[in-house]
């Protein structure tokens, strides 16, 4: 996972680079909560562009980070979610509380 912090936008970006299963999720959970507590961002964005596998551990990871982001008054968004991953999110209903957003960096460059 790569972590990018955009100070002026108060955005914390987590770019997942690994297969999101239970084994990896445990590690990401600790690191991401540490970063959220450290920066207390307004927006936390999770980038799934480089994720080529995810199981239900991904859902738990999102719900958990939704809670920790909320704790500091921030919101959680997802981006670059492919159809395979989207199908899993849709089954759980998690997209009702965590929206999919357009690519933050692209929007930043063009806008």
């Amino acid at each position: 996972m790569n972590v990018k912090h955009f100070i002026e936008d108060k955005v914390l970006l987590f770019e997942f680079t690994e297969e999101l299963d239970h084994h990896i999720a445990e590690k990401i959970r600790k690191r991401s909560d540490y970063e959220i507590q450290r920066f207390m961002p307004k927006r936390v964005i999770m980038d799934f562009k480089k994720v080529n596998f995810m199981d239900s551990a991904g859902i738990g990871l999102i719900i958990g980070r939704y809670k920790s982001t909320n704790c500091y008054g921030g919101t959680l968004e997802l981006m670059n979610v492919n159809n395979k991953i989207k199908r899993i999110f849709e089954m759980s209903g998690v997209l009702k509380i965590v929206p999919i957003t357009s690519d933050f960096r692209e929007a930043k460059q063009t806008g």
Partner: protein
Amino acid sequence: MNKNIKNEMKIEFSSKSANEAFARISVAAFASQLDPTIEEIADIKTSVSEAVTNSIIHAYPNKDGIVKLRARLLEDEIEIEVSDTGEGIENIEEAKVPLFTTKGNLERSGMGFTIMENFMDELKVESIVGLGTKVTMNKKIKKTKELEKNTY
């Protein structure tokens, strides 16, 4: 129901979470003999990952145990069996309910069985408390192209 078994494999491994990736990749590699689509392989990998993770987390919560994985290639179908000799499931119907989990503290979503049911064609769960659990799942692999007749 005597289906013709074309090929079969078995693996046993410790209930360590690092083996989740090993398990799903092994089954995916084995299943490739049926010439599945990328979609079908993805469904199989996700389902195996769910079943194996369940055994690792729920069957052996405080100790290491053995998870057994068996896959069989039938004519146009793969059958996957994941079993353990762990704690067992008290109420299988309840365990299958979407979002139901006994491990919310571990950030489990309670979607494991729902995903297996959706991604595979058949799912059978057998469990005896104190003895273990066996999950059997089948998926039809559609023939996408004419396979050349290989003689091994």
